[in-house]
């Protein structure tokens, strides 16, 4: 059964949401999902682009009042 973990990276500047996502995916099993909360508008573009390039699955990307919630599923 797959798991989902959430990383609240809002208002953190270093290493930042995407580095946290990459680190979290490394410690995840295939099929697990990682949700990243980011207040960095760049994440909404960068994370889906990277997810596609590396071969993981973008489950959702939602814009909220002050942040984005992006869910990625580990595929390999």
């Amino acid at each position, binding site marked *: 059964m797959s798991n989902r973990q959430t*990383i*609240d*990276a809002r*208002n*953190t*500047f*270093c*290493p*930042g*949401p*995407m*580095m*946290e996502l*990459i*680190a979290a995916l*490394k*410690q995840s099993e295939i099929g697990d999902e990682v949700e990243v909360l980011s207040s960095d508008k*760049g994440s909404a573009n*960068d994370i889906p*682009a*990277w997810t596609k*390039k*590396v*071969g993981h699955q973008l489950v959702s990307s939602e814009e909220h009042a002050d942040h984005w919630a992006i869910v990625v599923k580990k595929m390999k």
Partner: protein
Amino acid sequence: MGTRILILGSGLGGTIVANGLARRMPGELRSGDVTITVLGATPKHLYQPGLLYVPFGRAREQELFRDERTILDRRINLQIDPAVHIDVANNRVTGKSGRTYDYDYLVIATGSRLATDSIPGLKEGAHQFYDLDGARKLRDALQSFEGGKIVLNVNAPHKCPVAPVEMTLMLDEHLRNRGLADKFEITYTYPIGRLHSLEPVAQWAVPEFERRGIKTQIFFNTASVDPEKRTITSEEGDTLPYDLLITIPPHRGVQVIEDSGLGKMGWVPTNPKTLKREGSDNVFVIGDTTSIPISKAGSTAHFEADTVIENLTLLVQEGRWSRDYDGKVFCFIETGMNSGTYVWFNYSTPPKPTPPTQMVHWFKLAYNRMYWLSACGLL
């Protein structure tokens, strides 16, 4: 029986907390109302940022070490007995010796370790400078380097976020100073879509790298290294040849954290403001060990330690809370052999680096000496 404060780890964070508590509670220590014990893994304290200078022959190794006992306040009980089990339900830690240590308050500052073997071929094919042995070997490799392709490869997560940029710029200058300007090529790889996780640093690095002819490969998360063919391949599908590979290895927390069921990969889920372990009211976590999504750096441990010192002191003396951690991080950035800059930020203030100057470089060199005052709790 007095209040027993147990600190796991004798690196920067654990040492600052121990000394800070001792300075604030001299009466309690004298009367026995408070005891402070540090469980360390080694009797030697290493100034880790100094490792950056070792590959270039610019640091004497004996300058990087002090006896932990000479840094700690004499009223602190130091035990070289690394923890092998942390039982937060029963407020008890077991050391490697088999001895048990009971506590009323626990501070976990066990840091991180290199996970070089988590990527196939990386350990065999790459140099690194994040421990003394690696820094020595890189120094030897650079001394015999006469030209070729260098790949400087960054992996996540890693501590000291600016070290890769510093190493790249210092390496470029070092090799130029050796008269090899036309004989080498550096390619810098980074896991995300820019040259550094800090956006202002990334923006600053672009023209700086271009000016020096340093090539870059973004979105590069290392999948494997082939030491025989001398190639490094990313999860994204890119392969780079190299003659000399220098890696910033991925990190993970220490084994006892995972063995005790306190956190995946050795990172302990920690409240970003109170610095308490999630689910515990008497366990604090600082430095690299936390799961907080901020820089794993000495300054982070230092500022977190200051927060824990104030809160633990007031909890013991008055039974009340002092203040939350504001997320402050400060980093010097060496931008060559003779210039430097700095950056600081917290949970509410983004970083804004200033133009590099020689003055900041000198201050960084001065801090390399003043570090020991920080560890002693005097700075």
